């Protein structure tokens, strides 16, 4: 560190110029960073569920739909039909849309007096009221249409848009949004479907970030100004976080990585955490100036004394983030990696660019007299100098100091109470754990009264739903036995009440059979012989272009059963999957048919599993890594164990809170534990190392603990305040997960800080007190610095 500080102060211009150059380069690459909300991007490319899903899309066409619902008093009117026809035409014209299914385009196998045809359900729009009423009866009594393209009450019609293969669903969704946005016709339009939600999500997240980030920066600037009372005291840490952010995004651009809802909070994290390093260093530089050193000496001394500590504090933070790389979720690994890189950049910039620029700056009168930073640097012995403009603030810190001193003195008597309260809280948290739910459905990212949710709920309410479960049956589909099994399976599936009417080649064949027998309902059944199945299929192939492609492969070896899911909550889908597995067993196992199920909901369900799995894994990794780093740092097994125990209990508390408050574990809230461990450990480190320092100075037991709390307690208080203030801005986000994230990080940081001032010293007293009885000499390990 000494040699490094000599370099930095020796060639300050070089370091400043290099940093600026790197920043400009990074900014260039950062421009390429886009945002993804595609659930498939969260999986490793070879994940089983993604492979299955992709295969089905490749074989049968898209399983993601854009849905435009038209709501009006009565659909079965000429106005209703004209509106649907016009909208259908407009939507068909959107590039990237391969198919629009609506009342005016849906195809039907029709038996007529003279023969049979596959054609539009409507040959002509009805003219009279009676004709409309007749059509209403036919359509609403037909499970193929009622609930899928017309609501059973006849007040809403659905346009189901299929995205062309190879087209980007989000781009297409944007174009559809434009059409819906500029709609001025009759009734009310609602737009939903996974691609639409993804498009809106990516867009509103960007807007949200653009609003939140300046607020976070402003708040950080205010806090910095309160610290240093100088412009450069604000600008230097500020530049540090901005540059580290640009570097990180630049690297993401260079490596062609995308932002996601998950690492959307990364900028906020970097800003909140990244400025701390600059704060510690600048405070020491100012202290050096005050002691009468010149700028270069002040920097060299400052970096030598506090540089290593800053580096180590940063390394535990990085370890916390890097631990998330043990997750299987691609975007989560990216988050961990790039946030760790961001922290590393902030560290590097704080230790190179900041000191070299500081050396180049002229000394101001205020710097030599100002000592605000000292109070916050946690180096102890602060606050003796109370003159100047900061008197009011000093007073407040004075109050804080008094409280802390009183607490520090009271603790040895109250340690039993502390342990008891902690014990109760741990029990409470443990009881909350089973209540934790997971949520991987992106639509919960929207407020219940936001436009996307309203549309989503309308489609779920008036129609079967907007997401589908997809089942693929592999075998000889032309075999009547296979078709009968499919029919029985579909009936069973519908009876669960969890889906709308399932659709497959079975429905088509039954309708064809009826049509071939002049519409006789008695023939609404599957053909009994293979020849007839084959010949009906031949007829359908000849009659309609691609009418069967959605349901049957060309070689008749795979059939798709599709059903819209009425309840797409995590719990609803779990129940559905369980029911499907049971039905597989009943209907397909006896024929030894190969069946698989997939769909967006299956992907989301798999993602929820990955979230939990990744959470547990990364938590252990983080705790392990932090334990090792702290052991190296403090040179004490006891310190390392106690500090790690404290963050562990903090995280436990966080999960308990989530359980009790009903906050689901989702792809954003899952990040809390890595931040909690990486950052929360710092407080324990500070307390324990200060305690060691006190012991070295000859103070033991209660005295050492009281002094530690009184002095380091202040630094912890201010540090926690600074970190929290960055995250607390997230509470104003328009996305519930960001709000949860903001409040939970706040609670976690507060718990970690509080625990380091209560539980940790209580445990130290307990262990060291007991040990003191066994040995005459107290354990004391000389290690760091």
């Amino acid at each position, binding site marked *: 560190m000494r040699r490094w500080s000599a370099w930095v102060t020796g060639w300050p211009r070089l370091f400043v110029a290099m940093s600026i150059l790197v920043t400009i380069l990074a900014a260039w690459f950062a421009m390429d960073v886009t945002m993804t909300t595609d659930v498939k991007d969260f999986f490793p490319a070879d994940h089983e569920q993604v492979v299955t899903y992709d295969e089905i899309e490749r074989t049968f066409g898209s399983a993601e739909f854009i849905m435009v619902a038209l709501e009006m008093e009565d659909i079965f009117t000429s106005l209703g039909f004209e509106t649907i026809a016009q909208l259908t035409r407009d939507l068909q014209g959107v590039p990237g849309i391969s198919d629009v299914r609506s009342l005016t385009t849906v195809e039907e196998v029709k038996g007529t007096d003279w023969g049979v*045809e596959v054609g539009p359900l409507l040959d002509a729009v009805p003219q009279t009221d009676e004709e409309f009423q007749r059509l209403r009866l036919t359509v609403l009594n037909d499970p193929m249409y009622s609930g899928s393209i017309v609501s059973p009450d006849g007040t809403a019609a659905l346009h189901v848009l299929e995205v062309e293969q190879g087209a980007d669903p989000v781009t297409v969704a944007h174009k559809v949004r434009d059409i819906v946005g500029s709609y001025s016709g009759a009734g009310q339009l609602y737009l939903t479907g996974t691609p639409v939600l993804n498009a809106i999500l990516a867009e509103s997240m960007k807007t949200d970030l653009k609003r939140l980030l300046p607020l976070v920066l402003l708040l950080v600037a205010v806090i910095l100004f309160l610290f240093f009372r100088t412009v450069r005291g604000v600008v230097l840490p500020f530049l540090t976080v901005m540059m580290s952010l640009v570097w990180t995004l630049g690297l993401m651009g260079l490596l062609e990585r995308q932002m996601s809802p998950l690492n959307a909070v990364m900028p906020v994290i970097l800003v909140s955490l990244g400025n701390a390093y600059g704060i510690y260093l600048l405070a020491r530089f100012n202290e050096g100036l005050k002691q009468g050193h010149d700028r270069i000496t002040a920097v060299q001394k400052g970096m030598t004394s506090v540089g290593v500590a800053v580096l180590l504090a940063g390394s535990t933070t990085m370890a916390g983030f890097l631990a998330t790389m043990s997750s299987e979720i691609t975007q989560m690994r990216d988050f961990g990696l790039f946030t760790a890189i961001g922290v590393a950049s902030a560290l590097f910039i704080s230790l190179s660019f900041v000191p070299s620029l500081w050396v180049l700056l002229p000394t101001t009168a205020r710097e030599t007299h100002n000592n605000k930073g000292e109070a916050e640097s946690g180096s102890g012995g602060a606050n003796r100098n109370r003159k100047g403009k900061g008197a009011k603030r000093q007073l407040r810190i004075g109050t804080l100091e008094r409280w802390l001193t009183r607490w520090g003195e009271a603790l040895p008597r109250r340690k039993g109470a502390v342990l008891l309260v902690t014990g109760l809280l741990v029990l409470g948290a443990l009881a909350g754990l089973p209540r934790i739910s997971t949520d991987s459905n992106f639509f919960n990212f929207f407020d219940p009264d936001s436009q996307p949710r309203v549309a989503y709920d309308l489609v779920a309410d008036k129609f079967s739903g907007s997401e589908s479960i997809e089942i693929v049956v592999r075998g000889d589909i032309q075999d009547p036995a296979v078709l009968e099994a499919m029919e029985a399976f579909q009936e069973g599936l519908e009876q669960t009440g969890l889906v709308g009417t399932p659709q497959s080649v079975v429905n088509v064949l039954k309708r064809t059979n009826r049509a071939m027998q002049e519409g006789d309902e008695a023939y609404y059944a599957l053909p009994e012989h293979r*020849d007839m199945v084959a*010949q009906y299929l031949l*007829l359908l192939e*000849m*009659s309609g272009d691609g009418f069967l492609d959605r349901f049957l492969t*060309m*070689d008749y070896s795979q059939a798709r059963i599709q059903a819209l899911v009425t309840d797409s909550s995590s719990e609803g889908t779990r129940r559905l999957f369980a029911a499907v597995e049971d039905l597989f067993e009943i209907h397909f196992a006896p024929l030894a048919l190969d069946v698989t199920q997939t769909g967006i909901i299956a992907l989301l369900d798999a993602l929820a599993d990955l979230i939990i799995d990744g959470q547990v894994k990364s938590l252990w990794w983080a705790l392990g890594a932090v334990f090792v780093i702290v052991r190296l740092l403090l040179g004490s097994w006891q310190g390392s164990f106690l500090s790690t125990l404290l963050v562990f209990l903090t995280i436990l508390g966080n999960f308990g809170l989530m359980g009790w408050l009903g906050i689901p574990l989702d792809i954003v809230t899952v990040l809390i534990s890595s931040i909690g461990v990486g950052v929360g450990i710092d407080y324990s480190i500070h307390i324990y190392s200060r305690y060691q320092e006190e012991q070295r100075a000859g103070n033991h037991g209660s005295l050492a603990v009281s002094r530690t709390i009184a002095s380091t307690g202040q630094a912890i208080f201010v540090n926690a305040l600074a970190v929290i203030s960055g995250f607390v801005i997230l509470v104003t986000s328009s996305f519930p997960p960001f709000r949860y994230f903001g409040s939970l990080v706040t609670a976690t940081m507060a718990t970690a800080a509080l625990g380091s001032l209560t539980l940790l010293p209580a445990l130290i007293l307990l262990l060291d007190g007991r040990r003191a009885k066994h040995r005459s000499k107290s354990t004391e390990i000389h290690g760091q610095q």
Partner: protein
Amino acid sequence: MLRINGVQIGQKDEGNGKWMLGLILGVFLIGTGTVAALAGNEILAEVDTVMQSDSRSMSQTMTLFSASGQSRTRELQVFSDSTGGEDQMLVRFIAPADVRGTGLLMDGDDMYLYMPALGRVRRIAGHAKQGSFMGSDFSYVDMEQFGTRGFAVDYQAIFVETQSVGDREAYQLQLEPTSDSEYSKLAMWVDSERYLPLQIHYFDKQGEHFKTLTTSEFALFDDRWTATNMLMENVQSGTKTEIIVEQVDFNAAFEASIFTTRNLERGQ
């Protein structure tokens, strides 16, 4: 045999004055244009002569490929006739076994289907004929153009240039529809010796490249060169259809009764 000599015209005219040059240039351009069109149409007429016949019977195997690589193969016997003025076509399915005996009759705009399993003839809506030929990448019109209808009725051709396609020399033609058509234009490469299309690019109504037909495996049937392998690829969707011609009889004489629903019902 036909000569392409349009390019030579006007080459000897070298004017002195500028106006003269302009005039000659104008004449030259109009002249070559007309001659190119003339030559194009002549080539196209020659193509029809080689390929078209008023009545024929053909055994073929048709294989459909999906974009993701699955396929379905059927053997057909196709009888077509236009001697009565109207285009008539009868398709019999030979294989696979479960559709054997199924028949499709096209009589003008009417289509009838016979299914042995149902034991009855049913009429199919006429608009089905506007779509693809039995779910393949060939349209009914494509099939007719290779059979009894020819191209010259629907298109006028402009000669573009002489190119080599594979190891064959070919004339490249641009075909513009003269009446309402499902295509905006065609680009056709015609074998300069046998006058068979080696390749055809079909462009959709938006002017985008839509389908590509590639022919190969030429053989003589009744002293006429015939492509026994026709591959139609939909370049937009990735599907393709391959027709392998097993046997052609260009001089088939049919009883008029073969193109009736009663005959259709007879099965074989």
